[in-house]
């Protein structure tokens, strides 16, 4: 049963502070509580999805919270230059990743070391970023806001800008039911926006749910190859077991990215990165944590011929003869790519709810 109910949000603060001695001329004369309805949004777990990991009950997305989160997401004020918003690197038409650059570009054109990740189905992830540095979606935005090569700002300064803004104080009050621009509310609003980004309407989803779609022979064949050669890591509906693994990419001496070891300090985690979901993979190029591979063909050629050995290379890539890689025939590659393209969800990338304009 679906329970639809409404929060009645009452701005009661003035009635409480009326005994305070601030004779501010702009104090509202109307003491009547102002009422704003703020309906809960319908966050439904698609029937072919696992349970959400995000605690929806603790931060239930509401209409106003979502709108606030969206405004923040597309607002350059979160960056020191007033320009680089979250949406600058996370572009909806590419499933919220960034195309024109291999690794991300931030404030003053500074270049990051990693490829912007797509943002979809975040409510189902345990940890965030390529190495799992962020354990909570609510705190993840601290990373881009403060990173010199991204938004190069401080959380405190963002909050002062928002407090001084003409619109934000009202929007915060409407979203959370009382006055106050705070870090907690800012992060929760961003989460409300991001949690709603569920991509579950690809051809693959419809096929999984038994809706009226048919896979071509190639797509079927590709799915079978995927299940035997890829699904041990790219597991389940979201194509990730959410583990960290080394898939044999040669180390890039410029970045020398140690991967998961940065978070755990363990040498056994050296050069391991999170197994990415492959949803919308057709449009989220370039590929890998540093965006080094431009096309899906490149990715598959890498899996067959491009791997290098290192102590943490995943065992699945070790061939009995001592070489590394997966055995995929040229025909299977074509089939795999056909299958991977069934993961594209046009409804998601065209969903007006998430659009900047």
């Amino acid at each position, binding site marked *: 049963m679906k329970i639809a109910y409404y929060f009645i949000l009452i701005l009661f603060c003035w009635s409480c502070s009326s005994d305070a001695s601030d004779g501010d001329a702009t104090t509202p004369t109307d003491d009547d509580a102002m009422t704003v309805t703020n309906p809960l949004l319908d966050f439904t777990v698609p029937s072919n999805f696992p349970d959400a990991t995000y605690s929806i009950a603790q931060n239930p997305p509401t209409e106003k919270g979502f709108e606030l989160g969206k405004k923040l997401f597309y607002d350059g004020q979160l960056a020191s230059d007033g320009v680089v918003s979250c949406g600058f690197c996370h572009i909806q038409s590419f499933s919220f990743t960034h195309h024109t650059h291999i690794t991300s570009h931030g404030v003053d054109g500074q270049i990051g070391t990693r490829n912007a990740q797509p943002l979809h189905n975040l409510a189902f992830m345990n940890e965030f970023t390529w190495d799992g*540095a962020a354990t909570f979606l609510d705190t993840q935005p601290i990373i881009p806001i403060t990173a010199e090569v991204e938004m190069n700002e401080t*959380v405190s300064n963002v909050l002062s800008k928002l407090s001084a803004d003409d619109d934000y104080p009202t929007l915060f009050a409407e979203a959370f039911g009382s006055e106050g621009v705070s870090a907690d509310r800012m992060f929760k609003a961003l989460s409300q926006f991001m949690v709603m980004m569920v991509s579950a309407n690809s051809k693959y989803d419809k096929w999984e749910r038994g809706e009226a779609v048919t896979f071509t022979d190639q797509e079927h064949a590709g799915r079978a190859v995927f299940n035997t050669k890829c699904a041990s890591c790219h597991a389940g509906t979201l194509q990730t077991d959410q583990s960290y693994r080394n898939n044999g990419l040669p180390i890039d001496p410029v970045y020398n990215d140690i991967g998961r070891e940065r978070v755990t300090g363990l040498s056994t985690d050296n050069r391991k990165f999170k197994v990415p979901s492959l949803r919308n993979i057709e449009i989220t190029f370039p590929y890998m944590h540093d965006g080094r591979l431009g096309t899906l063909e490149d990715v598959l050629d890498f899996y067959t011929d491009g791997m290098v050995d290192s102590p943490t290379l995943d065992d699945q890539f070790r061939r009995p003869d001592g070489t590394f890689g997966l055995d995929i025939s040229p025909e299977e590659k074509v089939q795999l790519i056909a299958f991977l393209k069934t993961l594209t969800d046009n409804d998601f990338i065209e969903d007006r709810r998430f659009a900047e304009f």
Partner: protein
Amino acid sequence: MRKYIALLAGVAILFTACNNNDEPGNIISDPGSLNLVFENTVDGTPLAMAPVTYTNSSNETYTINELKYIISNITLIKTDNTEYIYPVENSYFLINEDGSKTANLSDIPADTYKGIKFGFGVDPTKYPIESGTLNFIPLAEEAGMLWTWSAGYKFLKFEGDFTDATNPDDVTPFLYHVGSHGANLDNYKEVTLTLNEFQISGENTMSKTIQFDVAKIFDSVHTLSLEEKNEIMVDPENAPKIAENTSTAFSIIE
């Protein structure tokens, strides 16, 4: 529908709460306040920053430039062993040798208490989902207690210089930054201290001094030598040792 009613009731309570202070004739004593004053010491004497020197059990002489730590999740234990959990969202405190060293707690139910429990660091199960805990971020950020690259808190920031006995002229900086390592390693520790029974009531503000013995960071359950390692941050071997040592550094002075 039930939630709707509950919410309206909640709002109604908020309204009446505003007027409560006008109403005479309270049945029991008003809630009171408790100030926890953290006193940083080294082997029992009040800590002094550089250039004052101290020596650890590895015979290394050190000076201190910075000492900060995070205290959270404060719980007061009543004489009947029941607990009063201080509102989590208000229970995060930064203790800074060069700044505030007091955790001011207010609105504590009037009662007789005999113990206090608190966290060293930030509990990963309470952070950040429970309402309000994210509000500690700006303060931690300004104090340099945030690992911004991983959106995690540093529980302890302890920095200075040291020389070892064999090389007294060779001054080397040291740095201990301890926090949790993503979801992989939890360095949060719970500390419980027993006190003489004390009364909380609306009539006066109680104050209790908690001593933090810096020497224990190096020498307690584990012995840490600066010569062996002078920079410890995300270090799965040593960071847990520091966290464990640090959790033994608190005691009550009465």
